[in-house]
């Protein structure tokens, strides 16, 4: 906050006696030496990004993290004993890094693209530090080049086990029951001996964040489908509704193998893609759904579907489209 510095001259007009003028000068010097302006500016920017409900708690966490980051990783942070000066074990240190990384990932919703990406980057760098040290300047083992993105810090990637743990925590914090998220995690997780590059880390984190939203939406949808009566929803209706979603997904990803864009046809590709999206969204317009639902009532199988089964069916639609990490 440069304001803090700028306000100082106002408080100390030139006509003040010399004693007081030097005091305010030295105060100003002290503040600029300590870099307080930058500190506060950074804190306020983070706060604006995160928009947390508890500003004081947020600021406390933020400065806690900063302080433990600037002390070269040995003394405990706010999570561990504040008075302990003994260096933490590798495991505990890792846990600390994980907690801090999760805190960063919680700051912004995945729909806030740039803020979310920044936070993922910070979290990745945090977790990267705990990997085994790499020989500086050596090429990464993996076939892709994204490992070389870490010029500073230790590891050439996040340890697979740590990455999997991060994803588990994200899913459970997002309110997804373990049984529902298990198939997703099976597709995304990595072995402990594997090094996770940034792209995969980002994709995994984003997928879990999106999945939590998706499951919440599916739960809301079930409640809506139940709505007119108050008991469990009819099986036929549930299947019809999920069927329209499935159709839309299949339409929009028609020939999704063509991820590579032919330079000559990029305009044509964009047109084809746009048409597919329009077609898919036409499938899930309200009148199409009304037709599907009234049709289901007449022709569908009998019986009811409970919330859990609906949730699993919806989750399956999502999870089958997640690429297995390898």
């Amino acid at each position, binding site marked *: 906050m440069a304001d803090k510095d700028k306000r100082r001259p106002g408080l100390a007009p030139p006509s003040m006696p010399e004693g007081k003028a030097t005091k305010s000068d030295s105060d100003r010097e002290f503040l600029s030496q300590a870099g307080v302006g930058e500190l506060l500016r950074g804190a306020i920017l983070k706060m604006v990004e995160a928009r947390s409900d508890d500003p004081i708690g947020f600021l406390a966490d933020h400065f806690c993290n900063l302080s433990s980051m600037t002390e070269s990783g040995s003394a405990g942070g706010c999570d561990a004993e504040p008075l302990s000066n003994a260096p933490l074990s590798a495991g505990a240190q890792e846990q600390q890094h994980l907690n801090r990384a999760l805190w960063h990932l919680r700051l912004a919703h995945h729909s806030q693209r740039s803020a979310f990406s920044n936070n993922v980057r910070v979290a990745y760098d945090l977790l990267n530090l705990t990997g085994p040290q790499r020989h500086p300047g050596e090429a990464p083992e*993996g076939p892709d080049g994204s490992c070389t993105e870490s010029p500073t810090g230790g590891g050439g990637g996040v340890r697979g086990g740590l990455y999997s743990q991060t994803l588990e925590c994200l899913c459970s914090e997002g309110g997804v029951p373990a049984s529902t998220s298990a198939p997703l995690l099976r597709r995304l997780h*990595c*072995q402990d*001996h*594997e090094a996770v590059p940034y792209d*995969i880390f980002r994709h995994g984190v984003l997928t879990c964040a999106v999945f939590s939203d998706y499951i919440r939406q599916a739960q809301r949808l079930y409640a809506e489908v139940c709505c007119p009566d108050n008991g469990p929803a009819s099986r036929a209706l549930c299947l019809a509704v999920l069927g329209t979603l499935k159709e839309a997904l299949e339409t929009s990803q028609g020939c999704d193998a063509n991820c590579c864009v032919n330079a000559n046809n990029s305009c044509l590709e964009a047109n084809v893609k746009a048409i597919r999206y329009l077609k898919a969204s036409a499938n899930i317009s309200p009148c199409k759904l009304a037709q599907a639902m009234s049709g289901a009532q007449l022709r569908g199988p009998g019986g009811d579907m409970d919330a859990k089964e609906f949730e699993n069916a919806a989750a399956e639609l999502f999870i089958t489209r997640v690429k297995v990490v390898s």
Partner: protein
Amino acid sequence: MSTIRVRKMSGSTEEVQAVSCSIKPPVYLQIGDTRTDAAHSGICVVDVSLPFGKPVSIEEISFKNYYTASVSVRLLRRGPGQEAPAKWCTALRDLSLMNNPHTEGGSQDFYSIHRTQMMEEPDHVVSVRLILRQPSSAWLTFSLEDIKIFPHTEPDPEKEVSDWLSDLTLGDQHPDLEGLPDPQTVSSSIQQMWALTEVMQTNQTTACIGRFDVDGCYDINLLSLT
């Protein structure tokens, strides 16, 4: 290159370029010995040949008159097959350009002959012959200037409206919604779920996992025993 605006059947207008053709110098027909008898007979023939090997379907022939009283148009057409012989036919007989051949009326006007005015379909035309007549002795010479031939272009086929688009516009049918959930809210939820899945799919990466490497070899502690 000159152009005309053609109003097509579908109502859209487009600029059409004239076909590049070679116009031979007019040949004045004479009776008797050409050297001794210098008087013109009042008939002149202008041959216009179209680009070799590319028969044209004619939309329009336009020209500027220069004291020609009437014009006849003959077309040399070659059938679509390679083997078909070319045949001459009369497309237009004695179109009057000047009301009175002795007076000025119409002598320097612009004219255009459309394919609908022709007696024969001017398709697959290889060569055009214009026969000019000027019976009056008042005018020493007569000809047509600026002869241009415009090709016929097929109108675009009607674009088909996709099934799903027309389905949307028929959405006024109201199925019986007794006891069913509100389609608007259900649709909105489904749309959000669809969008979330799309977000996940478009963010997929082709990157691969790497292995940890220490001093050029595997760290023994990291090797999995499974």
